[in-house]
């Protein structure tokens, strides 16, 4: 009951925020929402199955380009849906070969795919349009904000539903022991495929939503590998064991980045790097794990999974 309340309050606060805080804080919130949604989408698949995907920027970028190519012909929410569908279908059709790989091979392959996307888009754009990058029709910041809020809500709701469903159970069992899951009769290929495609679809929607903020889009911006790394970092810092982990990770890291960037322009990289290292070394379950441990002292709770299902 208690966690539900926190969620409701957070959501309400996020909904009314643009009317109450400065444009600057709103833009910071947008960055947080974007990364929270990405981090949670990533966790839905990679967190459960242990298949570390480095393809986030590819899916994000595809979504970004959907918005760019649609060029304002449809309202932003429609662009988001189209982006999600395209990503889902594309990944579903193509990824079964990719999912045969394990561990580091999978990770680096997905990274290679991302880079391949980025560079072929560059070349394609050159050939098809004779130019680099495109201008985007401006969109009201509020529209972008609420679109991001909506997709973030959708992502978190999806994560919640997946976690409680048999599908989620199947994903987790693959993460624990894929061979055993196979012998137990789970169609691991199909499950992985659906999970991966779902994750990709959500990331695409996020990319589609946030793009109009930048006025100008080119493949290096859309398929920026930093997006992949930051997503994983935020997921890990927040903690993948609980639902609010990615949100917490995004909020903390985005705010810290901003703080360091603006107060310590010459040293912020060192500071950020140090904070990251400390968190990873000393908080194996991320910040949410820490909070969970502190606040559950009175619970006789066995493991993380039981105590937290919010």
């Amino acid at each position, binding site marked *: 009951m208690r966690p539900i309340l926190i969620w409701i309050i957070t959501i309400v606060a996020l909904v009314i925020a643009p009317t109450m805080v400065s444009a600057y804080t709103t833009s910071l919130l947008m960055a947080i929402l974007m990364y929270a949604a990405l981090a949670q989408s990533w966790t839905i698949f990679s967190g459960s199955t242990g298949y570390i995907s480095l393809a986030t920027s590819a899916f994000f970028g595809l979504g970004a380009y959907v918005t760019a190519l649609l060029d304002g012909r449809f309202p932003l929410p429609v662009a988001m849906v189209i982006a999600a569908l395209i990503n889902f279908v594309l990944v579903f059709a193509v990824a079964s070969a990719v999912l045969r790989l394990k561990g580091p091979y999978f990770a680096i392959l997905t990274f290679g795919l991302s880079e391949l996307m980025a560079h072929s888009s560059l070349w394609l754009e*050159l050939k098809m349009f004779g*130019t680099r990058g495109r201008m985007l029709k401006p969109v009201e910041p509020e529209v972008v904000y609420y679109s991001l809020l909506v997709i973030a809500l959708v992502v978190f709701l999806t994560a919640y539903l997946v976690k409680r469903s048999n599908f989620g159970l199947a994903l987790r069992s693959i993460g624990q022991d894929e061979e055993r899951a196979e012998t137990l009769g789970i169609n691991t290929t199909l499950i992985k495929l659906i999970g991966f495609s779902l994750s990709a679809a959500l990331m695409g929607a996020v990319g589609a939503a946030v793009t109009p903020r*930048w006025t100008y889009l080119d493949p290096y911006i859309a398929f920026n590998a930093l997006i992949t790394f930051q997503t994983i970092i935020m997921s890990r810092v927040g903690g993948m064991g609980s639902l609010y982990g990615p949100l917490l990770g995004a909020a903390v890291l985005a705010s810290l980045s901003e703080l360091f*960037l603006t107060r310590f322009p010459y040293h912020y990289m060192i500071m950020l790097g140090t904070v990251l290292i400390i968190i990873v070394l000393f908080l194996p379950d991320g910040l949410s794990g820490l909070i969970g441990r502190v606040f559950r002292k*009175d619970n006789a709770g066995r493991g993380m999974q039981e105590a937290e299902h919010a």
Partner: protein
Amino acid sequence: MVNKFSGWNFLKMAAAALSTLFFLGSAASAEEPKEIKVGFTLSQSGPYSMGAQLQQMPNYVMWAEEVNARGGILIKKLGKRLPVRLVHYDDRSDIETAVRLYERLATKDKVDLMLPPWGTSMTFAVASIADRYGYPLIGVTVSSMRLKELGLKNFFSMMQAPDAVCGAIVDLLAAVREKANLKSLGMINVSDLWGVEVVKESVPLFRDKGFKIVMEKSYPLGSKDLTVVLKELKAKKIDTYIGYSYPGDTFLATAQSQGLGFNPKVFWAGIGAILPAYEAKFGAAVNGVMGPGTWNQKVPFKGSKEYYGRFVKRWKEKPDHWGGPCTWASLQCIEQAIAKVGDLDRKKLTQALHNDKFSTIIGPVKFTKGSNLATPGMVMQWQQGVYEIIWPKERATAEPIVPKPAWKTQ
């Protein structure tokens, strides 16, 4: 732990959180302006950092120092001088970060004036933000035909656009072609917006003047190795080389051309040629290398030679020949606009920037629909340690030297 009780607690916590947000959000500002806040971001890391730190930062900083040494900028409306304070951040060569930071400059730091970041992509992205909040912005390291597409009312561009840059190259080469017996032209370009545009502009211009383009290849941004294209250029006996490249690539192409013994009669190196570091690195070998630019220490415009002296004294380095002087010129325009208008009202300043003529170290500046058309495209060439202007004739500080002497190996 009873539910109702803890629920109450959390409501209280939430209320506290919300009101904190409220406080953070609303920033109170001082009433009587005591200083002029000038905001910008410049990359300190990533691929844009070199240009940003070499071309723009030293000029922004030196300008603020000199203005403040004079007691500040005179604001007639207030009847006094106000000092300038630079408010700046590192955008990490990341567009998302830059956009967010410019929004911060407008809404949180509430700066009075804005200066641009480095490079075309970044300036574009940031220009809309500046425009939305009504800040005039003069782009100084932007060279693109796409400016018009932006349709922004508050955006200005100081540098020559690709058509002017290419037009000058073509005209110069046409003028020297016979004497130097130039037969085959080869072009390479960096696959970034500027690189793509200059190729698009130059190919028809070259064809019109009857040049034969034997080879045209593009290479990705941040390439570490250009030997393949350079070998091909050499094998095809290209005697006129045009390398539309960014500073890092220009250095790379030059070094690798030396290493491969690629010695065309004309070597238009790229943007990197405008940097003093280029001459410092390659020494006497740069003799005869051509490139773009807009200024050198010999031009007759008011204040130009003094600028050169002061810059060298302040930074113990020479200024560059394109982005840097354009930056300084833009600052001069801003100062002159403020002097004309008498206050910091952004609408009036924008008007003044659109309508007036300005006198700067790069010559007269006049913005037509936001683009400075008063400065023609130029070709410059390194000759005995000076980066001379060799085209157009009205601006030239020396005669072109063709062919370029063969690379002196060290």
